[in-house]
């Protein structure tokens, strides 16, 4: 018998894929991964999409999602190889010995059953606890995880509690049967950053108090650094680096790990404002048709030529609505927009072709921002044709120049969007915007759907293009690290209002207003002990008040 709780040896995982129009075929997702986990320890699995981290996590329960199948290797839990277990043996393992917390609690709870029934179900059906004991335990966990009204929250249905609360309920569900190991699969990724920190702390404390071991899966190295003892870095189903948290964060050996650690640390010198702003948003108030509350309330911001204004906020802050108002898609109820020394018509129909040309937009999902039936050449060529009347060879030459500018080369000119990677798609969208020779580009969460390293590439490209083309960006994002990398000035939005506005250095330096303070201090930092520090600070502050 070893003293390890979980021992994985040379794990190989494959899957059958069904690409439309092609014959189904098998692919290898995980190529021989090995690791150990001692009782009570936390191992972080980190990697970008396609790294195979969730698949490895689920293999600790001998479970393959969809067409996924474990094709080789050994997975030992508490001294037995679970890949050799009978169906019955696996059932006894799942739900009581090893449990699982998924990314989306909202989808993982059965909508038709009360929370309490679902939290206690595994313990009760497997005969681990009596119903009364399991319920008492659940209430205790609800309290420990900081849920409001722990006595009664279990009698609610999943849709009756908030997303952050449901994620804690899911953690309670996993901890209720007193398992030896919990697999956390991106448990905070879907949450807003200010909610994430509380859930993260709750999870960390629960792990510590119950002495359970955990596999913590995430793409965010800063998050995993807060909760793990060891970290394994994965890339395309292979282990890149495996070591203690301290070693991985402070002394990474492999280039890939170094890149992940230094992600979003782009240095950007803030530019000073000019005398004459090119965009003035004045007293904008807006609401959507058929609703009775203002999504934007008296918003005022300015943007100078060749500079970047970042609009920061969480979901529901109104930041994307502001983009719709500026582009003319949503005429405001009140206020006006000045652009290049002229007042823009509030609705799209009233704008001149030059208004439209000089104000371009890039979207979050590059996938749906391009017509799948048009080639890259057509997509980039259309603005050239539409605004400048370019045709034939002249147009093709300009398309090639633009492709060079986005570092893609003219080999892509006849490709369709479906043939491009996520980062390439976003680059094509940038080229389409540049083709119009705009003065301002609105970037709506342009990096948030991308893996961190790819996102970094896009940010660097945008910064380089700004230097060459002297174009201004209105950069909408929820991610403060991105803001630090790209902004010259910042507007922090909360519930439809700008709560803080100024140059980057002003906005990011104390003294802070309450919301900005909360937001800034909630962003995970790539250093050990950050989470405890923040929580301790917050406790001190609230004690001081």
């Amino acid at each position, binding site marked *: 018998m070893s003293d390890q709780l979980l021992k994985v040896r040379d794990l190989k995982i494959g899957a059958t894929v069904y690409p439309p129009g092609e014959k189904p075929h098998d692919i290898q997702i995980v190529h021989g991964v090995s690791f150990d986990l001692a009782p009570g320890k936390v191992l972080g699995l980190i990697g970008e999409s396609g790294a195979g981290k969730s698949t490895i996590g689920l293999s600790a*329960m001998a*479970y393959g*999602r969809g067409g996924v199948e474990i094709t080789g290797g050994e997975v030992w839990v508490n001294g037995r190889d679970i890949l050799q277990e009978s169906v019955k043996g*696996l*059932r*006894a*393992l*799942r*739900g*009581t010995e090893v*449990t*699982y917390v*998924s990314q*989306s609690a909202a*989808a*993982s*709870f*059965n*909508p*038709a*059953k009360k929370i309490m029934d*679902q939290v206690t*179900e*595994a313990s009760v*059906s*497997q005969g681990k606890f009596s119903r009364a004991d399991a319920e008492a335990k659940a209430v205790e966990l609800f309290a420990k995880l900081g849920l409001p009204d722990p006595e009664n929250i279990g009698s*609610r*249905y999943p*849709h*009756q509690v908030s997303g952050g609360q449901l994620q804690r309920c899911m953690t309670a*569900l996993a901890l209720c049967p007193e398992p030896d190991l919990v697999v956390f699969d991106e448990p905070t990724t879907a949450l807003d950053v200010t909610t994430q920190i509380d859930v993260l702390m709750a999870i960390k404390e629960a792990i510590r108090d119950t002495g359970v071991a955990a596999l913590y899966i995430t793409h965010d190295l800063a998050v995993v650094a807060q909760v793990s003892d060891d970290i394994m870095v994965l890339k395309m189903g292979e282990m890149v680096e495996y070591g203690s948290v301290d070693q991985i964060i402070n002394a990474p050996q492999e280039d890939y790990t170094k890149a992940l650690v230094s992600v979003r640390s782009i240095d950007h010198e803030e530019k000073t404002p000019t005398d004459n702003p090119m965009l003035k948003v004045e007293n904008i108030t807006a609401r959507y048709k058929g609703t009775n509350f203002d999504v934007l309330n008296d918003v005022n911001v300015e943007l100078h030529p060749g500079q970047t204004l970042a609009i920061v906020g969480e979901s529901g802050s109104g930041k994307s609505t502001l983009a719709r108002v500026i582009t003319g898609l949503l005429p405001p109820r009140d206020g006006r927009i000045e652009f290049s020394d002229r007042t823009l018509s509030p609705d799209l129909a009233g704008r001149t072709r030059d208004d439209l040309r000089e104000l371009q937009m890039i979207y979050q999902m590059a996938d749906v921002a391009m017509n799948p039936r048009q080639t890259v050449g057509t997509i980039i060529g259309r603005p050239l044709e539409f605004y400048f009347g370019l045709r034939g060879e002249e147009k093709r030459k300009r398309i090639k120049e633009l492709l060079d500018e986005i570092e893609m080369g003219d080999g892509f000119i006849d490709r369709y969007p479906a043939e491009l990677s996520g980062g390439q798609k976003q680059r094509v969208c940038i080229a389409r915007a540049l083709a119009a020779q705009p003065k301002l580009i609105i970037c709506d969460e342009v990096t948030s759907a991308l893996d961190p390293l790819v996102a970094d590439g896009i940010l660097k490209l945008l910064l380089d293009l700004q230097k060459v083309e002297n174009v201004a960006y209105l950069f909408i994002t929820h991610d403060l690290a991105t803001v630090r990398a790209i902004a010259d000035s910042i507007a922090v939005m909360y519930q439809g209002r700008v709560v803080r506005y100024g140059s980057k250095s002003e906005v990011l330096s104390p003294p802070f207003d309450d919301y900005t303070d909360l937001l800034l201090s909630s962003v995970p930092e790539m250093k050990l002990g950050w989470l405890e520090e923040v929580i301790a600070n917050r406790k001190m502050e609230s004690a001081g008040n």
Partner: protein
Amino acid sequence: MHLALKLVAQRLALGLLLLLAVSVLIFAGTQILPGDVAQSILGQSATPEALANLRRDMGLNEPAVSRYFSWLGGALTGDLGTALTSGADISKSIGSRLGNTVFLAGVAAVIAIPLAILLGLLAVRYRERWPDKLISAVTLASISLPEFFIGYVLILIFAVNLGWFPSVATVYDGMGFLDRLSVVILPALTLTMVVLAHMMRMTRAAILNVMQSAYIETAELKGLSGLQVIARHAFPNAIAPIVNVVMLNLAYLVVGVVVVEVVFVYPGMGQYLVDHVSKRDVPVVQACGLIFAAVYIGLNMVADIVSILANPRLRHPK
């Protein structure tokens, strides 16, 4: 509960409104469309005198709106008027035929519903394997077959070659239940085959949709047995879509019944309607059309109400 009840009440009101609008449409379709009804009934060679008489008998000289309201008023009080061709009271003629049709459709439903759900479950259980593929091939074939083809093939096999059942479904008053049953078995089987494919395919889709939810994975990862997963987590969420499927297909049965009754010369509503369409007996056609539409709308409404009631978000609002 409050919100769900409100939605159900809304849906009921919508159903009634729809029925009213449909009655206008049917009335308009037969009375206001271009062309003279009396002329088309009597044909081109009719004398002007005969035309005038018919117009007066049909009340065609009154304005359309007042004719509509007197027709609707009659229909609401159970008076559907008299047939032009036979002079018989339509409500009376419909009474026994409606019973026959409901009996036939009922037998078909009793066979089809459990069978469709069972086959749907089988298709899900053996998804992408031969039972599923066989079932989907049969489905493709059966949606490509006209109803009368299935009917005649069944007659050829079971009535002509094997002689097990009569080829003509004659019923008379005072017929015993078992006799009736043996008479309607072939038409009911035909109807079953007509709706089975659709019902099964939709059931399969509904169950698959539920089985692919993340909460089923959660249940599996709790170490529950296959049966527990289905009984506790899949079934409560699948019941509403399945009831929906069943209702929609019963509505579809309403149409199938028309053709099947003609094939088997079964004295039901469908046969009655078709006979009088060829005789251009407008009052009968209106009455039958209204009843068929009402059943159709009613079943669709039940389907919607079941989905409202089964939705936990509506049953337990925040």
